């Protein structure tokens, strides 16, 4: 089953808090239910994206790590 990703946000190379700040900015204009794919290399993003998801109610649909790149699929609340 492949997910219908609306937008990909490449935050690779960025340090805290920019992956979260850019995610919030990128997900805002998307319609409710749309999926945003986030790519990050900041190891702190694993905990931070989870915390951001709990704070905002935007769900993490998928999560993986591959060669130092963390991938998250987030569903717009």
């Amino acid at each position: 089953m492949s997910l219908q990703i609306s937008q990909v946000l490449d935050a690779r190379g960025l340090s805290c808090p920019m992956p979260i700040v850019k995610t919030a900015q990128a997900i805002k204009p998307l319609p409710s239910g749309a999926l945003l794919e986030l790519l990050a290399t900041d190891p702190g993003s694993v905990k931070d994206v989870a915390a951001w998801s709990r704070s905002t109610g935007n769900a993490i649909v998928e999560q993986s790590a591959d060669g130092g790149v963390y991938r998250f699929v987030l569903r717009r609340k």
Partner: protein
Amino acid sequence: MTTATLEAPARRPIDPLAEAIADIEGTPETEPVAVEAAEAPVKTKELVIVNWSGDLDKVWPVLILSSTAAASGVHCKVFVTFWGLLPFVKDERRIVGETWMQKMLTLMQRPGIDHLKLSKMNFLGMGPWMMGTLSRKYHVASPRELLEAATALGVEFVPCQMTMDMFGLKREDLIDEMGEPAGAATAIELMTGADASLFI
């Protein structure tokens, strides 16, 4: 059915033992209880930060926390006072103030978001230069980038009227993103009404 359940009020027991008994013996039909929590709108959380310092190593975390708060759906207000006001002076304003003493202050501490000093290990600018080089190497967003993100995400900056008067700063000396100046009573109201407040 026991007498206990017959006598039970039209509400489900809340202690675990009674609940366990009720699970086995069954409970009398009860009126559905309205779930108030689900009906009430969720209150947006609020964070208030007092930005007192003009030091790089204090303004930076203020901008990191405020932009992240706004990104996390938290309503964030930053009350900007004392030395903390100088980083929010417009770039083109080099020396601000009306009297010679006010002008001297900004001569000794250059205003603007790009000219912050470290609270320790400043070493005539060597420390901030090294911090800047390291932050670029590790792709840490600069105070300027964070300030832009914070204002774009709706962080409200409230300048302190008293500090503005003391430093001889006019509203037009400050960046356009600054809100209306206010005083200590406003700061207290903001802090006591918020879910969390920080003095940095």
